[in-house]
């Protein structure tokens, strides 16, 4: 019981912005609004919101590895793609009966994590760091994209699942929950919305607890000064690997949910543009804070979609400009900058009141 209490106390701490009744009150308000929102909206818009939420997981994965851990991974999309394709291959072969789609989700995320164990082992135990880590991870995701793009021929199949080259894989069954009477199929509207929202809240809170724990302390210590961290007796390679694997699992979760949402996955989801975009969301939001990352990602995604109406090329140029502006004006992130500013004002007000 005291262990549980200590865990919840870690929801607040030096590694995460936001504390006290004001913050959690606002959090509850936003959550209540998110829960009520589908009641006042149509299926298409709700489905579109699910699409936004899906990307937040890969953004959080980058926030963890890059923002907190200090290792820039350019290849989170590799895990996204592996898990997405993995889900497709499992469910096209074995269908959706007996709740298998849920098992497929877990297994697909597991495969992405396993791949990260292998890749991460060679990188971190080989002491690859800094810009080289970015180069290796980018190369991996681009290689996977190239490979999947040439699997158009009928010989490229796993069981009954055709890989379909550049066109990608489609028509995999959506997530299905077995239920007495009739199974509940989570199509990309209200059903999937509540599942993804639930996962998002769970992951967000769990990451807050993790980053404010002693594990999180070591992760930021490695970012600040890896040599000093090692000379305090921490095997930093192990900590980096674990962080990398957790991040890969989150990126994989993003990939599965994306595949489930649109019932398709293509090689371009692992391509250059796809790999670069999460970096922009996270950098603009504030990579070293979970809340800033979530808000930043949702805002930038919505802006991006609104701009795409006028042409996706312009939207991409805008993304580039946004990144440059962030680096120049608020290198730690625009949302984080605003939140810190609000925090200072709140502190001043409470000081005056007290």
């Amino acid at each position, binding site marked *: 019981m005291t262990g549980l209490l*200590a865990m919840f106390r870690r929801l607040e701490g*030096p590694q995460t912005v936001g504390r006290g009744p004001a913050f959690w009150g606002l959090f509850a308000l936003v959550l209540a609004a998110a829960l009520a929102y589908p009641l006042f909206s149509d299926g298409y818009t709700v489905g579109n919101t699910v699409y936004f939420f899906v990307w937040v997981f890969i953004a959080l994965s980058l926030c963890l590895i890059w923002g907190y851990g200090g290792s820039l991974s350019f290849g989170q999309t590799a895990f996204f793609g592996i898990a997405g394709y993995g889900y497709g291959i499992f469910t096209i072969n074995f269908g959706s009966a007996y709740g298998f789609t849920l098992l497929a989700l877990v297994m697909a995320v597991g495969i992405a994590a396993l791949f990260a164990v292998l890749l991460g082992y060679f990188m971190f135990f080989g002491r690859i760091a800094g810009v080289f880590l970015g180069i290796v991870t980018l190369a991996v995701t681009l290689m996977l994209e190239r490979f999947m793009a040439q699997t158009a021929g009928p010989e490229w199949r796993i069981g009954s699942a055709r890989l379909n080259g550049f066109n990608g894989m489609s028509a995999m069954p959506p997530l299905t929950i077995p239920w007495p009477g009739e199974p509940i199929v989570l199509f990309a509207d209200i059903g999937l919305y509540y599942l993804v929202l639930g996962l998002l809240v769970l992951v967000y809170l769990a990451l807050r607890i993790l980053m404010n724990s*002693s594990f999180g*302390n*070591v992760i*930021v*210590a490695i*970012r*600040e*000064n890896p*040599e*000093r*961290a*090692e*000379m*305090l*007796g*921490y*095997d*930093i390679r192990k900590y980096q690997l674990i962080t990398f694997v957790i991040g890969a699992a989150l990126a994989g979760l993003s990939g599965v949910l994306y595949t489930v949402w649109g019932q398709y996955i293509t090689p371009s989801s692992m391509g250059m543009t796809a790999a670069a975009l999460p970096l922009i969301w996270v950098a603009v939001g504030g990579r070293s804070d979970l809340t800033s990352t979530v808000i930043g990602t949702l805002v930038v995604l919505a802006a991006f979609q609104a701009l795409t109406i006028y042409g996706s090329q312009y939207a991409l140029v805008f993304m580039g400009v946004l990144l440059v502006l962030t680096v120049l004006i608020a290198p730690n992130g625009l949302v984080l900058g605003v939140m810190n500013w609000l925090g200072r004002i709140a502190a001043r007000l409470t000081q005056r009141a007290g």
Partner: protein
Amino acid sequence: MSLLELRKLNKHFGGLHVTNSVDLTLQAGEIHCLIGPNGAGKSTLFRLILGEHHPGSGDILFAGENITALKSFARIHRGLSVKFQVPGVFKGLSVRQNLEIALQSRHRGEELEAEIDRLLTFLGLESEQAQVAGNLSHGQKQWLEIGMAVSLKPRLLLLDEPTAGMSPEETYMTGEMVQRLNADGMTVLAIEHDMAFVRQVAHRVTVLHLGQVFAQGSIDEIVADERVAAIYLGQAHA
């Protein structure tokens, strides 16, 4: 009893012999100072002891165990600890968090908080605890890092120029801190250029020159040694 023993330690980068067959024995409980002109190989010797560099040949024995092949973190677990030449604090984190990271593997919960408070008092950094470590003065950063190194309760503390950039008063206070730690049973090996500090604390002094042990003895013996004066002290006194 010898705590640290370096046997014929060699390290070369290409054709440059940075340490050349260094033999050095540290007795448990002593404060030993390592001096020598720039480029003598002092910092490289530290990196060899810590496992950041690996010797071309030779052995490192710590408390009787051969640790030559061990990784750095494993050597720390055996009872080594270090303060680097350039203060290696976690600049973006608060002073308190710096100490928490150093202490958290030994203490938990309220005991951890109490231990952090105790260390803050020892270092005289209570009022700076909420500050970001990067904003501390140079001397305060040095103390904070010494505090982190000491918090591991090491058997051997390595100090690479602990008083660099400090005023004479700060240097003297650091010397007193080192003596207090030594009185509690900590063996200390310090690289130092400040002769006042060496005179204040050193039981024994080793002079390193061109990667080799050049002379060894008490500070008075070293100062009296004309050969040493010629390579090192002579320049300092000139």
